[in-house]
């Protein structure tokens, strides 16, 4: 059932698994067709679906950094500015995302409060943090466990959509509770910033290329092997002289 793994080991003295890039091929990210790339690393169009195929997503790390920084900056207005105002019988004040969660908690609806907290506070923050961790692990010489990094990547790219929950709720309430002086819900400027945070973080996760995790890992492992080989050679060379 499981595909033929690590064929590189059977193909001679290579220690690292064989990757498509080493063979001048690449996987189309849209239709998953194996495509032979032109020499020189240029992009080409997938013969099956017509999408552009790059060996690695073009400028992946740079674009992801840019979007992550944008998202982090936008998180401030999204949390400081009010996202909606509930006016009931003439009284009511603007509430931010956090104060909305606190209101729900104090009203005894802790289950709903937890859902809203996870969706609109924990998920965006965790997503940005996760992407920053991945980017740092690739770019700096920080210990990198690829399977753990992949798990993080999958969580980060899977949960992002749930943070739109709060905005959907606002759009429902705005239409539902519109009775003039008795009760009214209006949206606040923070919701625009929050919507942008969600879109930016979703695009950031899309522009991150997980294959770079494995590139960095393989590179470091190859360096370790090389170092060990040269040390062994030096010892061999040094041994007769010492004796």
């Amino acid at each position: 059932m499981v595909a033929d793994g690590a064929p590189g080991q059977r193909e001679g003295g290579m220690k690292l698994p064989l990757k498509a890039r080493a063979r001048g091929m690449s996987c189309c990210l849209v239709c998953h067709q194996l495509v032979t790339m032109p020499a020189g690393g240029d992009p080409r169009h997938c013969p099956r679906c017509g999408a552009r195929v790059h060996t690695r997503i073009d400028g992946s790390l740079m674009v992801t950094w840019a979007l992550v920084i944008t998202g982090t900056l936008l998180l401030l207005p999204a949390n400081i500015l009010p996202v909606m105002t509930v006016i009931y019988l003439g009284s009511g004040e603007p509430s931010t995302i956090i104060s909305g969660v606190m209101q729900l908690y104090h009203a005894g609806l802790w289950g709903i409060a937890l859902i809203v907290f996870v969706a609109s506070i924990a998920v965006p923050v965790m997503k940005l943090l996760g992407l920053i961790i991945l980017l740092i692990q690739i770019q700096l010489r920080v210990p990198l466990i690829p399977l753990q990094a992949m798990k993080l990547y999958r969580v980060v790219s899977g949960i992002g959509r749930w943070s739109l929950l709060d905005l959907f709720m606002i759009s429902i309430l705005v239409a539902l509770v519109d009775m003039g002086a008795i009760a009214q819900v209006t949206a606040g400027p923070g919701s625009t910033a929050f919507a942008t945070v969600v879109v930016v973080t979703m695009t950031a996760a899309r522009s991150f290329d997980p294959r770079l995790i494995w590139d960095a890992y393989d590179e470091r492992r190859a360096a370790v092997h090389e170092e060990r080989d040269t040390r062994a050679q030096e010892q061999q060379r040094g041994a007769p002289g010492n004796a």
Partner: protein
Amino acid sequence: MDQGQHRRRKTWQRACHECDLLLLDAVAPPGQKLVCPRCNATLHRNPKNSVHYTAALSLTGLLLFVPAATLPLLHFSIFAFGGENTLFNGVMSLFDAGYYWLSSLVLFCSVIAPLAKFLLLTFICWGSAWALLDRPVGLAVRWYQHLKEWGMLDVYMLGVLVALVKMSDLGKMEVGPGLYCFAAMMLVANLTTLSFDQESIWSRMARRASGKVA
């Protein structure tokens, strides 16, 4: 056998899209899935009768979309005053209040993307039977892959439930008939995503192309 293995070794079939490992297997056996031995990514799921199920499910989704979008989802009332919520009027009131970007995002994720997903899948599944439509179907599959994660019916559903609980102590909250259709549409949308396998569409087109040449 030795020779066969030698020949097989040279024909790489697939590269993992998450770790770039070259693999000798391209597709999973029917009803099973293919997992990357290095990074555990799901490379291919092969649901049985993918095209037929997807065609039927996406058509069901399109039919359910009509009542889900036109009937009220929730009904809220305080004393004699009441308000209704449909898929569109929330977007409309946000738009009227000047939140253009927010309202278009909500419209896109809750109406346009799910509807486009159903339409594209219906077109892909029915259109892949004709050689004449090969190019548009290929384009539709590409579009579908890009749109996939922006259809957020399940998130909207959770939003409805949170709104329902949050406002229930302020006034009287009633579930409208549209909500049942909406819930059914959400279920069908998720089932459609699960049953659709683009590999079966590509292989259907490739089989026809090779048949014509031979």
